[in-house]
Each structure stands twice: as structure tokens, then as C-alpha cells.
């Protein structure tokens, strides 16, 4: 009984718990230790609450679950409509999983303006969860824009040398991308009278939207542009390396782990969900961009002298896989895309933490500054190896499952996409292992590195959960795919119909 009543408010609780914590944090006195502990407690509590979602999730169902639907603003008709399905469920869990780790990894490294840092981090968490849980387009846009400010401030205040440039670039790219989505949302509202995702989807599917045929391509592009900047797809990716290199570690973790997934989630939810026909028409060039992203990202990552930039470009490559899988319109491809999102969130998040740990000790990300670190820092080296292998797609670790599924989906769609995409896996092994070799193997090249301390307590607490998750996800992917599969099936179920309708004309 109590689970029923909890089910109706659980999403609201999970979403706004961090925000409430952040507001409380404002009232706390500036004692850094207390603030850190408080932020950790709040983020852990959110994670524990969030576990309610997968535990009581009805796996067979394709409909949205834990729904709340209340009117928020009467004119225009804006609802507070939240709900999760198999697609958004795990992204929410991923967000709440990574945030406590971000708190832990920032325990020592942030020592100025500690209060502001954790307030921003918690506000960011609420906005991120809100993006994945909202089913009202207005609410979605609301949270989407709300992620911008805390992230830009985290980069701009707590970042490294060129932080201001990076923060402004990040803000402007995303802002300008998303105004096109706003225009598309406004058009949909003007012609359907609703912001509700489900209502709009059904109206479009039944052909009840006036003027839709003429506008559909523009609407698709409006949403696409906002998401493509966020993913980022190939020509829109230039903000990403700057933002990552300059961001503080926790910022990078959330940026790579969750913020980029907002883009791919949006493509899957809105571009495929609302405009299946246009998605199919535009698939060829979107997949081409994704392939360029996979290969270009990997090649650029290979030649980076800066460890953080290398990881950033590897994100461009990995997210290319996600887009490739989404636009293959196959069950395997979409399942794989979802799994890559989660796996990338864990492994790249962990890679950024590991890079941050080195930066804290040596204040540089240059790969040439290191070498032979395996002897002074054995635990660090071992943890790093697990994560690198997971990211490179070694079987039995989480990276493998997703990429394998994506590639098999891409093969089904068109063999050449699969073949070209598969080269991305080779490249990723090259740049990651080569980087690992240069940093950890051989003799210690710089004497300073001899005295580097190994992982501290807090760092272990932050890294090991990621390593454990990488292993569990690689061994038992069915736990995740079981919920993803029906939801994905529901998304592509609309496709044969649209095809037959086009053929029937």
C-alpha cells in the first residue's frame, strides 16, 4: 500500500530533493566540512530514493510509469507532467549515481567557495533529472534551459585557466541551439493546443494536426539542432573539448556523464517519437554525421597531448555510436544506443575523475609529463586499467555490449555503416591503450612523479563504484536491457506503419 502512495510522488521527490538540499545549503554557515557532508548525504539520499524507480518498475509495460499530471499554468495549458519509461529510467538512475561520486571527488579538490560549488552541483542535479522525467514539452524546455546556468557557472568559477572563454562558449552554443527547439515547441503548441508529449505524439500519429505535413521537416530540424549541439554531433562539437578541459572534475563528470545524454535522449524521445517519418527521411545524413563523428573524434583523440582533451574527443566518438544506433531504427541498434549512453556515462565519468586526480597532484593534464606511474601509484593504475578497458569495449565490461548491439543494428540498416562504425572500436583501443601505456608503463620519466601518493580514501570511494558498475553492466546487461527493450520496441513500433502509409499512397 505504502509503495502505491509513494509511487505517485516518487518522481517529484527524486527530482526536487537535490534542489531542496541546495536551498538548505544556502542557509548553512560556511563550515566547509559540514557543507561537504551535507551535500553527500543529500545526494546519497536522492540515489537511495531513486532506487525505488527500477525496483518497482513494471518491466513488460511500454507506457510511462510513476506518472504525475497536474495543471501548473492554466493559460497556456502547461502541466506538471512527469513520468519515466525504460528509456528515461536508467538515465535518471545514472544521474543520481554519479552525483554523490562527484561530491566525493570534489571533497579535497574544491577548497574555495565550497558552499557555492555544492549548491550549484545540487541545483544541476535537479535540472538534469527534470530533463529526463518531464513529459510536458514546456516543462522539458524549462529544465533543459535550467541546466545551463549551474553548469556554466561551475565551469566559469571553478575551472582552469581559460574557464571564462569555455563557460561562455558552452552557454552560447547550447542557448542558440535550443532556441530553435523553442520555436518548434511553440509551433506544436499553437497547432495542437497542448504541450503534453503523449497528446502531441498521438495527434501527430493520427494526422490531426493542421499544417503538419508542410512544417514537419522544419520541426524535425528545430529539435535536431538543439540536440545535435548537445550530443555533440560532428560540426557542432567544438565547444566540448574547451568545456571539458576547463571544467572542474565534477563538472566534467556530469557534463560527459549526463549532459551529453540529454542530446541523445532528446533525439530518441522527440525526433523519433514525434517525427518518425522525417527521422527516416533524414536518417542518411544524420548517420553520416554520426560516422564522421566516430572516426574523426577517434583520430583527433589519438593525437591529443592533453589527457582531458583526449577523453573529451573520445566522447565525441562514443556519442557518434549512440546516434548511429538511434538512427538505424532497429531493435538492436536502439537497445545498443541506450546501453552505450549508460556505459559511457559510467566509464567516461570515471576517466574524468581519474584525470582529475592526476591534475590535483601535478596540476597538468599533459600526457608527456607522466610515465611509469604504475610503480608509485599501483592502485590508481589498476583502477585506471579497468576503466580504460571498459571504455575501449573489452568483452565482459560495459562498453562492449552497447557497441556490439549498435554495430549489429547498423549492419542490419546498411552494411557499410556497420563496417565504418566498427573501425571506431579499433581506433578507440588505439588511443586509449596508447595513452595508458605512455602514462603508466616503463620507467618513471619525471622524478617528481616518484613521490606521487596513491588514491586517497575519498578517491577510492568515488572510483570503485564506477569500476564495479562497469563490471556488473558487462556481465549482466539483461538487468538494464530488460527495461529498455520494451520501451525501445514501442518507439520503433510506429515505423512500419509510417512506411506502409507512405507506400500506400
Amino acid at each position, binding site marked *: 500500500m505504502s509503495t502505491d502512495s509513494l509511487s505517485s510522488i516518487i518522481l517529484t521527490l527524486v527530482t526536487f530533493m537535490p534542489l531542496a538540499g541546495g536551498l538548505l545549503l544556502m542557509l548553512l554557515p560556511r563550515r566547509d566540512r559540514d557543507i561537504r557532508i551535507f551535500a553527500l548525504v543529500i545526494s546519497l539520499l536522492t540515489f537511495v530514493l531513486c532506487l525505488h524507480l527500477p525496483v518497482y518498475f513494471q518491466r513488460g509495460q511500454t507506457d510511462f510509469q510513476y506518472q504525475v499530471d497536474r495543471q501548473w499554468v492554466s493559460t497556456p495549458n502547461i502541466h506538471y507532467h512527469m513520468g519515466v519509461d525504460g528509456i528515461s529510467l536508467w538515465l535518471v538512475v545514472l544521474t543520481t549515481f554519479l552525483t554523490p561520486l562527484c561530491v566525493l571527488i570534489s571533497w579535497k579538490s574544491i577548497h574555495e567557495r565550497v558552499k557555492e560549488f555544492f549548491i550549484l552541483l545540487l541545483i544541476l542535479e535537479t535540472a538534469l533529472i527534470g530533463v529526463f522525467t518531464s513529459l510536458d514539452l514546456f516543462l522539458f*524546455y*524549462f529544465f533543459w534551459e535550467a541546466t*545551463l546556468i549551474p553548469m*556554466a557557472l561551475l565551469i566559469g568559477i571553478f575551472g582552469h585557466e581559460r574557464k571564462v572563454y569555455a563557460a*561562455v562558449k558552452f*552557454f552560447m552554443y547550447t542557448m542558440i541551439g535550443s532556441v530553435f527547439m523553442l520555436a518548434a515547441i511553440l509551433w506544436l*503548441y499553437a497547432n495542437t493546443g497542448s504541450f503534453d508529449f503523449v497528446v502531441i505524439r498521438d495527434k501527430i500519429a493520427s494526422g490531426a494536426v493542421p499544417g503538419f505535413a508542410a512544417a514537419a521537416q522544419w520541426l524535425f530540424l528545430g529539435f535536431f539542432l538543439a540536440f545535435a549541439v548537445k550530443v555533440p554531433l560532428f560540426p557542432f562539437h567544438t565547444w566540448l573539448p574547451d568545456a571539458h578541459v576547463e571544467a572542474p572534475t565534477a563538472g566534467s563528470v556530469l557534463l560527459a556523464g549526463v549532459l551529453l545524454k540529454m542530446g541523445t535522449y532528446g533525439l530518441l524521445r522527440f525526433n523519433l517519437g514525434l517525427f518518425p517519418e522525417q527521422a527516416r527521411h533524414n536518417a542518411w545524413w544524420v548517420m553520416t554525421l554520426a560516422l564522421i563523428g566516430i572516426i574523426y573524434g577517434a583520430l583527433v583523440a589519438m593525437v591529443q597531448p592533453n589527457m582531458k582533451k583526449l577523453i573529451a574527443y573520445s566522447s565525441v566518438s562514443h556519442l557518434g555510436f549512440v546516434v548511429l544506433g538511434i538512427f538505424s531504427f532497429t531493435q538492436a541498434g536502439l537497445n545498443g544506443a541506450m546501453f552505450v549512453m549508460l556505459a559511457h556515462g559510467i566509464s567516461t565519468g570515471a576517466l574524468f575523475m581519474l584525470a582529475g586526480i592526476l591534475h590535483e597532484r601535478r596540476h597538468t593534464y599533459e600526457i608527456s609529463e607522466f610515465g611509469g606511474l604504475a610503480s608509485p601509484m599501483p592502485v590508481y593504475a589498476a583502477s585506471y586499467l579497468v576503466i580504460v578497458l571498459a571504455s575501449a569495449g573489452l568483452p565482459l565490461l560495459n562498453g562492449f555490449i552497447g557497441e556490439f548491439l549498435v554495430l549489429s543494428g547498423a549492419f542490419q540498416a546498411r552494411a557499410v555503416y556497420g563496417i565504418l562504425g566498427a573501425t571506431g572500436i579499433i581506433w578507440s583501443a588505439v588511443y586509449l591503450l596508447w595513452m595508458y601505456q605512455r602514462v603508466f608503463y616503463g620507467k618513471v620519466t619525471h622524478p617528481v612523479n616518484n613521490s606521487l601518493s596513491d588514491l586517497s580514501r575519498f578517491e577510492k570511494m568515488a572510483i570503485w563504484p564506477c569500476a564495479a558498475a562497469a563490471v556488473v553492466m558487462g556481465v549482466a546487461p539483461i538487468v538494464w536491457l530488460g527495461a529498455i527493450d520494451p520501451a525501445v520496441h514501442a518507439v520503433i513500433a510506429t515505423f512500419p506503419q509510417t512506411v506502409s502509409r507512405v507506400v500506400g499512397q
Partner: protein
Amino acid sequence: MIAQTMIATIAPAFSQALPQTADYVRILPEIVLSIFGMIVMVLEPLLDEEQSQKVLGLIALVGTLAGLGATWFMAQPQYQGLAFWNMVQVDAFSVFFHVLVIAIGAVVILSSYEYMAVQRIRAGEYYALILFGVVGMALMSSAIELVLIFIALEISSISSYVLAGFRRHEAASAESSLKYFLLGSFATAFFLYGVALMFGATGSTNIAQISRTLLAGPIPLLAYVAVAFMFVGLGFKVAAAPFHVWTPDVYEGAPAPIVGFMSTAPKAAAFAVLLRVVFVIDVPGMLWLIWVSAALSMTLGNLGALVQNNVKRLLAYSSIAHAGYLLVAFAASPSLGASAAMFYTAAYAAMNLGAFAVVSHLANAGERYVTLEDYEGLGRSSPLLAAALTIFLLSLIGIPMTGGFFAKFYVFSAAVKANLIWLTIIGVLNSGVGAYYYLRIIVMMYMRESRREVPVTPVPFALGVALASCMAATIYLGIFPSHVLQYAQDSAQQLVLDPSRQPSSSALISSVSTIQ
């Protein structure tokens, strides 16, 4: 009463010549504000300078509060209607703008307290002029007679011309005042010329009458010219491109609290007039005039603001851009556009006044600290003030949870509904570009260390109240926009379906009904 009814029965012609009690109630806020303005003027020479700062400000503040009370009284249903021979109309629309401009006046008076003392400005005329200016603006929103609108426009303009030059020792302020005066009189002349031509074209200066004449028959060419001229005059007042060139110079020189005042209250009033003119006098072709002006204002305003280094100039260009967003609503369909525009003026007033209250506090004696560099490190030296300014700036960008977000949202959604897709795209792109320069200020405050010594004095009580009320309004409009929007929609509905537009209900009937 008996005498009145007697006159009414004996000589119907006279009954219209004598104003009734209800007529006075319908301009009660204006009367109250004028009386308080005069009290301030009379007391000013009687008090010594030390006292006058506090006392006169307090009287002026009480005056605005009394004005709000009078507006509340006027808003009772039995006082809705026409007054003074169809020159003034009290409806939800005019009540909305009354509350808005009087509240703006109150906040400006609150934020001027400290400023006056720091800048060593004699207080008397200053507060009186603010009150008189508010009288003119309030009257603009309820006048439905073009000549009365012109008079109200002049009352408000002349006060602002003088107020702009109040930093007497500064050459920039004198320049600002003179520039504003010369260009402003030029623009009002345009408006007056438009009124004259409209009279020539339709034989009336009553908006409802003009609307009926234009609806009835073929529209004379003269009417197009008249509307264009009136638009020029009002376009100047709201700082819409291409009539915006005065704005940065005038804002730069004028006292900071007055800039906050000038950029919100007269604009709101001029927009109210424009709303009546656009939606009641329905001239085809007006749409394209507004379309072009809106697109130009948004683009020129935002591009101009990108390169500014003086915060007051930056906000001046931003106000041009915001006039452009507002005009987008005008180009949209009547009922949707009018309510969106009303919401926008309210939200814009809250956020812009707040921003200028912060700017005027930081400016210090002689307005020395108004460049972007002076804001470096403010997040550290004065976290609360920086947080307040950040909220106002985020609202100006249009970030969720602030009034500015819903304001933009309603405007663009009205435009999309009216199928103005290109204007919407120009608008949303502009709001993306616009984010950059507001962000620059935030960057300065939080991400840079201060390089030179900028003294930050603690926030005095009055300014704190002003800031808190602006902030409360900004956030309230950002989270619970329904109430204000609903009110705006109802009054816009009244405006568009104005009974006086229907030929059947003549104005005479309503004036007779007020007698009873």
C-alpha cells in the same frame, strides 16, 4: 444630487456639461498623485536640505501608495466605464497599467533615497516630477481621446526631460536632458501631426469613433499616413528602431534611478496607447510597419549591446531589444498579442527596475563606477547584491523560473499562433545572441577578480525594499504567471471586444448610465 437630477431632467444638454462624482472617481489616482506632487512642491522650500531628503521622499512614497489605493477604489465594478465626455475610460486594461506605472513610481522613489543623498541632489522637484510623470503615464493608459492622449504624453515627457538632467554638475546629464528634449519634442510633434491628419481623415479624435468610421467605409489614404505618424511618435517613446538612436546617450547621462524609471514606466504607458491604437483602430498595413520595426529593434538592440562597456549603455541597448520583443506581440493576433504584451511590460518593469536599482547603488558619488570592469569580483565583495543582479539579468536573458522567461514565451507563442514564423525565428535567435552580453556582466561578477578598488557600501533599507519587491515580482511571474496573465487576457478581451466599437452601443448610453 437633487440639483443634479433636476438639471438632468430640465436640460439634458447641460447634464453632459457637468462632470459627475463617478467621473472624478475615474481619474482619482491621477488626482491623488497630483495633490501629493503639489504638497511636495509646497513643502520643499520650507524644509532645510537635510530634512527634505527624507521627508519629501516619504511623502512622495505615501503619495504613490495612496495612488495605488485610489486605483483599487477606481477598479470597483460600478466605476468601470467612460468619464468626462468619453475622454477617459476605466476598464481592466487601464487599471492594469495604472497599477503598473504607479508601482514603478513607488519602487523608483524607494531606490532614489540613497542615490539622492550620495549624489547631493536637492530632493524637492525630483520627487514631485516623478509623481507628475506618473500622472501623465497613468492618464495615457485610460485616455481614449487622441488629444487627451497627447496631453498626457506631454505631461509624462516633460517630467522625464527635466528628470534626465538632474545631475546638474555633470555635462553628460545636461547633454542627456537636452538631447532627450529636442528629439522628444520632435517625436511628439509627429504624434500630434498624426492626430491632426486622423481628424482630417475621419472627423473625430475619439478612438472608438475613429474605429467605427474606418470600419464602416473605405479607408482614406490619409488615415494610413496618420497611423504611420502616430507610430513614429510612440515608437520614439518606446525606443523602438529606427527611432532608437537617442536611447544610449540619454540613458548614459541621466541619473541611474531615473533611467530605471524612463526605461519602464513611459514605455509601459506608450505601449498601452499603442495597444489601444493598434487593436482598436484596426488599419491594415500597420502589421508590416510593426513587423519591420520589431525585427530591427531586436537586431540592432542586441548587436549594439554586444560591444558596450558601460553598464548603463548596455542596458539601454538591451531596452531597445526588449521593445522589439514586445512589438512582436503587437504584430500577433489581437487577443493573444495584447495579453502577451501586457505581461511583458509587467515582467520587464520588474526585472529592469531591479537591475537599475543595483546599478544606481553601485555607481556611487558622481556615478563613477558604471563600467563593466567595476563589476569585477562583485560576487565576492557583495554576494547578495551580485545574486540579486544575477537574477535580474537571467530574467532579461529569459531563463526559466524568472518572469522574463514567461514573458518571452508568451510573446513568441502569440507570434507563432498568428503564423509569424519568420519574426519568431528572428526573435528567438536574437534572444540567443542577447544572452551573451548579459552573461558578460555575470562573468565579471563571479569569474573575475577585482582589479581596482570599488567601494561597496551596505544596502540601505529603502533600496533593500525596492530590490526585494522587484525580485519577488520577477520570481513570482516566473513561477506563477497564471494570475497576471489571466488578468491581462480578460482585460485584453475587453479591449478587443470593446462595446464602444459596436455601432449599436453609442457612447451616450454609457454616459447616461453613469448618471443613474
